[in-house]
């Protein structure tokens, strides 16, 4: 059997480019003269751009996978937007501080983290998975703590870092059990062990505990209940560009890691005792979206509100994962929970980064505007930025015509078509609740009058990022077929391969919830629902 995730060195070219760019940015950032230091951000942008091009020119079949390419493209695309949002960041430190040096290291940290996100989809053993997760996390710890001079940032830093170390210990505990259960750290061997070791009547406790602990430990990265506590404080305390970064990088990496993990288990950890995983995912999804939304309702601090909304959106993605890869024939591709999850991840990244970029633009030099009153009536003075923000927020609500609507649509359809009625209804109800606090921001911007003249940043970069995000939110909302086909390929890869692995020797679990059981069929992996994705437009790798 081929390697479970087939990645070779050329396939890692984008990550290598990113890390080299990080090194360059680091060195430039330490230069004596500020003129040279400022080249750091250009090095970063060029690095991300080069990685994007490298990912485009990678050979999917030989060197990497559809999922890997998709994640690299997503990471680099969002990464550029994030870099633009953070353009002024090194200058925008606490004005009370005496250090006026330009800090180029900041961009090096962002690039390393992005490299980790991008690499996450290409890992093929547990150790690598662990290192990639840490590569994503450690730079974020640093930028949170140093992002701005106020004591909030330090408080955020200590909470994020210490709880992050706790979560790392938890998932390491789980990883050790996964290794112990299978005797290897390689994904292929672990998947084989799952295939051999699971039957409805004999479930290795080690496997279940291992998977659950890893799942829970990683859910820290995606801020899912019960490991969501840190999110609000950290989002609030960190500098806004860093918050924007946090809402993308750890979350994307975490979801990819969870996807890989679920794939190891063969998606169908079923049988009476083994149905714990879908049950756990369901409960987590419900709690995560509900708790995130109701707590967001109470916030007046915009960043805190976004933190809770970020929790809620993780809940939606979890709801998509509950549906899993629906291998029911006769449906459209949208019935595929994995595709829905990946699509929503991309959609969420775009809209939240856009909203944050607009917020960064609206904020004064020292991250002044945090309360909802601070951006009241900003639409009359900055109509374009306010419009970008409004578009992104409407997309987060799920307004038809935006990418957010499609994301929710696919999730709900994936849930409905796999029989998760209650979950689907809860997603819709939660989306309805969520509209309340998003609309409050829109109403503040558009209906109210400014109480005080607002100080906005002079630089155009965040505004450019916001406008680009808004354009993409609308663009993909109206013409999603390219994104859909990419997502479809990635999901196809995720599901198809695992189906092939598990085709042999697995009988459908007798009773159980039945939800996660695979229906063995001769066309698994060439499932009509998945093949259909191929049709509309040519593959991303020609």
């Amino acid at each position, binding site marked *: 059997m081929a390697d479970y995730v087939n990645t070779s060195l050329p396939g890692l070219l984008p990550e290598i480019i990113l890390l080299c760019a990080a090194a360059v940015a680091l060195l430039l950032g330490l230069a004596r003269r500020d003129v040279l230091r400022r080249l750091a951000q250009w090095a970063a942008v060029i690095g991300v751009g080069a990685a994007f091009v490298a990912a485009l020119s990678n050979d999917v079949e030989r060197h990497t996978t559809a999922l890997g390419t998709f994640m690299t493209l997503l990471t680099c695309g969002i990464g550029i937007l994030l870099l633009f949002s953070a353009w002024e960041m090194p200058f925008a430190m606490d004005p009370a501080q005496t250090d006026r040096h330009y800090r180029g290291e900041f961009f090096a940290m962002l690039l390393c983290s992005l490299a980790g996100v991008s690499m996450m989809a290409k890992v093929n053993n547990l150790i690598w998975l662990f290192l990639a997760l840490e590569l994503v996390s450690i730079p974020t710890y640093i930028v949170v703590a140093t992002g701005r001079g106020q004591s909030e940032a330090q408080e955020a830093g*200590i*909470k994020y870092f210490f709880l992050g170390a*706790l*979560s790392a210990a938890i998932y390491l505990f789980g990883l050790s059990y996964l290794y112990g259960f299978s005797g290897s750290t390689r994904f292929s061997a672990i998947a084989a062990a799952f295939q051999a070791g699971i039957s409805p009547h004999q*479930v290795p*406790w080690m496997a279940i505990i291992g998977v*659950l602990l890893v799942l829970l430990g990683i859910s820290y990265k995606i801020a899912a209940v*019960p*490991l969501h*506590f840190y999110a609000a*404080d950290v989002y609030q305390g960190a500098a806004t560009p860093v918050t924007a970064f946090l809402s993308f990088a750890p979350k994307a990496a975490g979801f990819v890691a969870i996807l890989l993990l679920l794939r190891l288990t063969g998606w169908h950890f079923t049988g009476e*005792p083994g*149905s*714990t995983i879908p049950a756990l995912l369901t409960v987590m999804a419900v709690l995560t979206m*509900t708790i995130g939304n*109701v*707590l967001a*309702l*109470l916030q007046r601090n915009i960043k805190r509100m976004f933190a809770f909304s970020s929790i809620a959106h993780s809940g939606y993605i979890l709801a998509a994962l509950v549906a899993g890869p629906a291998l029911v024939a*006769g*449906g*459209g*591709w*949208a019935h595929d929970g994995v595709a829905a999850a990946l699509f929503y991840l991309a959609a969420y990244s775009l809209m939240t980064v856009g909203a944050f970029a607009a917020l960064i633009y609206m904020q004064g030099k020292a991250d002044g505007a945090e309360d909802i009153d601070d951006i009241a009536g900003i639409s*009359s*003075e900055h*109509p*374009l930025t306010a419009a970008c923000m409004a578009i992104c927020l*409407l997309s987060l609500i799920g*307004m*038809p*015509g935006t990418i957010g609507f499609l994301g929710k649509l696919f999730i*709900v*359809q994936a849930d*409905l*078509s796999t029989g998760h009625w209650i979950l*689907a209804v809860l997603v*819709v109800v939660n*989306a*309805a*609740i969520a*509209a*309340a606090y998003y*609309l409050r921001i*829109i*109403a503040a911007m*558009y*209906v*109210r*009058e400014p*109480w005080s003249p607002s100080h906005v940043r002079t630089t155009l970069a965040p505004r450019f990022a916001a406008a680009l995000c808004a354009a993409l939110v609308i663009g993909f909302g*109206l*013409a999603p*077929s390219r994104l859909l*086909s990419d997502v*479809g390929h990635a999901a196809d890869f995720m599901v198809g391969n695992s189906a092939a692995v598990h085709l042999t020797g697995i009988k459908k679990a007798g009773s159980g919830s039945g939800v996660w059981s695979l229906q063995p069929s001769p066309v698994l992996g060439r499932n009509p629902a998945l093949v*259909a*994705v191929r*049709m*509309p437009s040519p593959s991303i790798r020609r």
Partner: protein
Amino acid sequence: MLPDLSMMQSVALIPVFPLLAALIIALFGARVLKTRSWMPAVIGVAISAVLALSLLVMFQRGNIVGVYQLTLYHWISSGGFSIPIGIYVDPLTSLFLAFITFVSTLIFIYSCGYMQGDYGYFRFFAYMNMFVFFMCTLVLADNFVLLYLGWEGVGLASYLLVGYYYTKPAAREAAKKAFIVNRIGDTCLAIAIFIIYLVFHTETFSRIFYSSDLKNVGFLAAHHGTLIWIALLLMFGAFAKSAQFPLHVWLPDAMEGPTPVSALIHAATMVTAGVYLIARCMPLFTLALPVLHLVGVVGGFTAFMAATIAMCQYDMKRIWAYSTVSQLGYMFMALGVASGTAAVFHVFTHAFFKALLFLSTGSVMHAMGGELDIRKMSGIRKVMPITAGCLLIGALALSGFPGFSGFFSKDEILSAAMNATWTWGPLLSVVGLVTALITAYYTFRVFFRVFMGDLVLPATAGLHEPSAFVLPGQDRHESLAEHEAHGEAGLEAQGHKPSDGSVAMWMPLIILAIGAAFAGYLGVFGGANGGGWIQSFLSPVHLLNGTVPPVTITPGTHIPVRTVSTVRVAPLMLMAVSSALVLLGVLVAAYFHWVNRRAADLVGASLRPVVTFLENKWYIDELYNYGIVEPLWLLGQALSIFDRFVVDGVVFVIGFFPQFTGYILKATQSGRLRYYGIGMIAGIAVVILGVLYLLR
């Protein structure tokens, strides 16, 4: 005859012009246009109105026949899943488009005068244009997803406009309430749309309504329960948007917005979206007869309830708001007996006379400095004659006075209910008759109180509507106090004498008054076979009246085939009775609120000698008062209290529940690292315990 393709594509432009205008105003309103912001707004809507009217003419001439669908663009198409963006044009769409854009144009023109000098002039027009765009999208949509876009969009515009005077706490509360109730409806509609996709594998109207599945007995038997759910959820969506019991509570409060908004959104157009939805989905509803009947029953109840509540209100706008709820109840009554034509006819006439009433009231408000309490003014026809005349026409139309538009459309509904094969249909008709009496009473109560009798002006007369220039931090009462301090001199200096206002304000009134007076004749004359124009115009929409081939779903549930559009003239008997009741209502109102305003108070006193008995014309009026008006009045009070405390309370709880949960959950965000750690470990421990339990 093939439809003219370029013409059809120009139909797709109808929503585009308001959108363009909204964008122009949003981008340039604050800096460039400022007080000229009305220009793009009015021009955009006027072009749309011209296009919509020409579409109507094309249908009328037969250039376009039947249903025309044009897919503009494939939004998502992937495998078996596709959502196109397209337009679906049939006479129903065309009629809705025509009156939406036409009435909008008039209201926009009116707003130019009304909102003059308002602090956020340009924002107002941007939102109004956005609203027209979404409303047109809603009506033109050829699938449920696009319809949902419009549906959400009008909700958004309404939210922004109701909260327009954001410094007023009442406005904020009203916006919040409207938001919550509408979210309930939106959620139901969204779920319904998902289920529709699961059942039919498409969202496109033509493929659903003309689907062979709907004639397939096996399919229907298999999906009977699901179809009931779909209809039920669609019904709740429609109820929320069209303010039917128990989701009607937001509408009266939404009157906190500027008066043109009330006229446009909460009377003439947006609230009719629910009627449109059910009329459009009639083929689905006829397969779920219990739900359809529920629609009728709730409609009848709402009509009656809101009318009685309207009797005991003193705020003019509020009275018209409840009257809107009541009239919408009539429309749902018609839908409940599967008579889409009657419902649409009433929507059509209602748009004219309700817009007229609101705009006239707006003029009163404008002249009286924002005062709307009918007890504080009297006889103002002397200072604003045009408004008085227009409001009289509107009142006659609303009360269904013979010869005016409301009379014909209401009679159409009543006769449809009377002729319905459904057992309880005639009962609905009776409820409708009683409601007609009440309607006539409360309508003319307002008219006689405010416009007839001796001239009494409220203290604030002559000021602009105060809320129009309240700045942040400034309170309505402050400005009033300021005005009072200035005294009469201040009146001369600051404001103007109460009058009909500028040409921009009274011109639209007159046009609307013409419509309100004569629109009803379209339902009687001008049709093909000597019938009404509306009926024959809508007859190609043969699904509108539930003309689905009879299918037996379950034993005992037989779907009746009814073609209401063939009933052209309502039974004369019904007409006579309803005319009599309306006249009676008007007379009672005239007596108590014009001729003898003390009488109502005297009734409460003890009996009088015979002389007074004779002087008082045998107390017949009092008898009526005691026998009819007074009990109804009490009922209205009771329902008003019920409305305020019970239904409001439920809505409050629905809105409050997430917040309340949030306050409890807030305790978990203690801000302390240790507790976060404990929370995380506790969560994991619970999960592992669950595994232990499962493994045992």
